[in-house]
Every structure is written in structure tokens, then in C-alpha cells.
């Protein structure tokens, strides 16, 4: 669902409870974030999130694995650790049972890789397959990393390259170079766990994961929630191999246009940035990386932690004065 439609749908939910009545709800809908956080004890909060989507790749096992990584990512974006997951699935009645088993196996293996357990789930029939996880994680209540605390002067770090949307759209029509698909798939399969641990070890101000609203959409939410501006340097932004090629052929998914329509009023581009590159920055990502805002004096510590974990990263911009604005220069 596009950002505009989602905001409309969620509005009535905000009227069903008053946040003041739930002081232990540390992160809810007030300032929307990647996951809900609820304090159970002075030193323990649960991080709760749910995500599911239609297939992005052809292979069942890989689809399940990507969906699982994407679902767990919301916990890591809050600085948490994954504890437990349940699957939510819709399979067509004529789907061979082996494929459904592959999807679940892919998910189970990724949850296990994260040191957590896929303990059950719910499955129904539907024409188009859908799969994802409801994930419970934990975090210390004082160490929750939201997207609402980026500060002017912070440096922006991104942990995965961009371009999954155009590559998977090309794949659906059999137009994608297998090497491009392999690189995009490897990127989607990478856990954001090491990046989350690096954030906690180094100490950062804010983070979010880059998924359906694209880099600029998620960046705008961080900027708006934090009351700042974000400034990206185009040359510093990493792209998957093939991303620019498919963008130049203009094979964008509908989500890219939804994102552009909703976020463009807050986004500015330096003169000379081609139209297709602009749209590529709105392109929906699946299981994208973390966008981290870290104080300049903590950057070296964060970089050391990321390097030690063999976690790729790119320094892509900075936090500037602004009011929910995003600039690409």
C-alpha cells in the first residue's frame, strides 16, 4: 500500500486509544516507526512487528528467506534482538505443497541464522501467494533506536545498496540479467542484525530500514519525526549492479510513483540529476539496509564496529537544519 493510502487507513486506529493511558507503549502510532515497542520491566521492552508481501523472486525457498529477513529487519531497525517469530501466509489452493514447504523452510533457516525461532503461524488460501512473519524482539527500554532523534550535524550511513525494485520488476518480465538478480537477491538475504549490533555498540541517534517507501520516503519520515533535514550526496549513494540500466529503460514499479507523489513536496534535487535517477531514489526496496544517523564524533566507532562484523556500509550524507525536508545534491 502506498504511503498516502496507508496514512488514511491508519487514522481511525489512532482514535481507538489514548497513548497517555499506556505509558509503557514506548513507540506506537504517535510518531510512527518501524515497530511497536512496549516496556515490560524497567530493563526489558518487547519490539513487535509484522510484515508480509507477494513473491519478489521465482524460487520458493529464497522468497521465504527474503520475506523473513525483511520482517525481522524492523526489529533490528529499532536496535533490538529477534526472539521469536510466527509466519503469516496465503497460498493458492493449487500451489504444490513442496513449494509451500520450501517457503517455510527458507524463512525458518533465516530465523535460525538470527539465533531466533520460527515457532508457528497461520496459513489461509488466496489466489496470490503472500508470506511474511510476525516478529517479537527485545530491547533495553533506554536503548530503543527510533527514527525520531536524528540531530543536526549527524552523519548518515547506509548499509545496503539501492535498486531492488527495478531489478525485481525486470525479473518478473524475464528481462533481468541473472547476475543482477543474483546480486539483488544476495543483498535482500543479508540480515541487518550485525548492523543493529554495531549501532548499539557505537551509540547512534536514529535509524530506520529502507523498504517500500524507498530511500527518500523513509528518509523523509526520519527527517519529519526528528524535526530536521536530511542531505544525501548522490555520488556517495550505492546502487546494485543493473539498477541504473533498468531505470534508464524506465521499468519502474507503481510503488515508485506512489512514493514520488507523496514525498516529492518535501524533496529537492540539485540541478542536473536525471529524472530516472530521481525516481530510482523513490523506488521501493525489499529487505533494504539500515539508514543510520550517527553523531560525527561517534562515526569512527560505528565504522569500526561495522568493519569488524564484515558489514558493508556507505557514508551517504548528513543531517542539516530543516523541517522534514530531504535534499539530494
Amino acid at each position, binding site marked *: 500500500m502506498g504511503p498516502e493510502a496507508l496514512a488514511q487507513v491508519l487514522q481511525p486506529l489512532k482514535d481507538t486509544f489514548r497513548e497517555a493511558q499506556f505509558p509503557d507503549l514506548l513507540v506506537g502510532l504517535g510518531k510512527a516507526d518501524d515497530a511497536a515497542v512496549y516496556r515490560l520491566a524497567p530493563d526489558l521492552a518487547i519490539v513487535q512487528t509484522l510484515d508480509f508481501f507477494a513473491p519478489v523472486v521465482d524460487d520458493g525457498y529464497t522468497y521465504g528467506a527474503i520475506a523473513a529477513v525483511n520482517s525481522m529487519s524492523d526489529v533490528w531497525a529499532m536496535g533490538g534482538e529477534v526472539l521469536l517469530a510466527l509466519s503469516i501466509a496465503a497460498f493458492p489452493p493449487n500451489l504444490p505443497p513442496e513449494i509451500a514447504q520450501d517457503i517455510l523452510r527458507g524463512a525458518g533457516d533465516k530465523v535460525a541464522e538470527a539465533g531466533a525461532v520460527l515457532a508457528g503461524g497461520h496459513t489461509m488460501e488466496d489466489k496470490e501467494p503472500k508470506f511474511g512473519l510476525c516478529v517479537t524482539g527485545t530491547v533495553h527500554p533506554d536503548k530503543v533506536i527510533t527514527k525520531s532523534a536524528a540531530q543536526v550535524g549527524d552523519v548518515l550511513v547506509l548499509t545496503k545498496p539501492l535498486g531492488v525494485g527495478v531489478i525485481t*520488476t*525486470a525479473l*518478473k*518480465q524475464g*528481462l533481468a540479467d541473472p547476475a543482477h538478480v543474483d546480486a539483488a537477491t544476495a543483498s535482500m538475504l543479508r540480515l541487518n542484525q550485525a548492523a543493529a549490533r554495531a549501532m548499539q555498540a557505537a551509540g547512534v541517534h536514529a535509524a530506520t530500514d529502507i523498504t517500500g517507501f524507498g530511500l527518500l520516503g523513509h528518509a523523509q519520515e526520519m527527517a519529519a519525526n526528528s524535526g530536521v533535514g536530511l542531505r544525501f550526496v548522490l555520488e556517495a549513494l550505492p546502487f546494485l549492479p543493473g539498477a541504473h540500466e533498468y531505470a534508464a*529503460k*524506465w*521499468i*519502474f*514499479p*507503481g510503488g515508485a*510513483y506512489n512514493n514520488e507523489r507523496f514525498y516529492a513536496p518535501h524533496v529537492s534535487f540539485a540541478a542536473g540529476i*536525471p*529524472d*530516472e535517477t530521481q*525516481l530510482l531514489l523513490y523506488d521501493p526496496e525489499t529487505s533494504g539496509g539500515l539508514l543510520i544517523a550517527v553523531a560525527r564524533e561517534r562515526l569512527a566507532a560505528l565504522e569500526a564496529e561495522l568493519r569488524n562484523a564484515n558489514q558493508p556500509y556507505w557514508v551517504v550524507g548528513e543531517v542539516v537544519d530543516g523541517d522534514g525536508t530531504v535534499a539530494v545534491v
Partner: protein
Amino acid sequence: MVTVDARGLSCPQPVMLAKQAIDKGEFPIEVLVDTVTSRENVRRLAQRLGLKVQAEPSGDGFKVTLDK
């Protein structure tokens, strides 16, 4: 007038067919599409290539007219 009937085709096929027609160089070209996404992909590609573009509703979908 060259007509590219891309109705019933899912993205990105319409924009690929439109690009093939543009590369042949016979204008004007009329591209028929079903979805907003296909319309936008064709419209924005053509704009980027410096063509004159006009998009309008047509039947249940859209007609995008391209000219030099």
C-alpha cells in the same frame, strides 16, 4: 500514426514496446495502456527523450501520444 496497443500487458512490457516504436523513429506514436504505472513509465521515458507527450483517458485505460 503508429499505434502500440499495450493493453492487457503488465509492466514493464508497455514501456518496452513504446521504446521499440520510438527507436524506429516513425512519429506520431499512440500508445494504449491499462494502468497508471504504465502510463507514467511511457510518459516519463518520452519526456526524458525530449519528445512531445500528451496523455489522456481512453476507454478503461489511457492513450499516450508521442511526437517529435
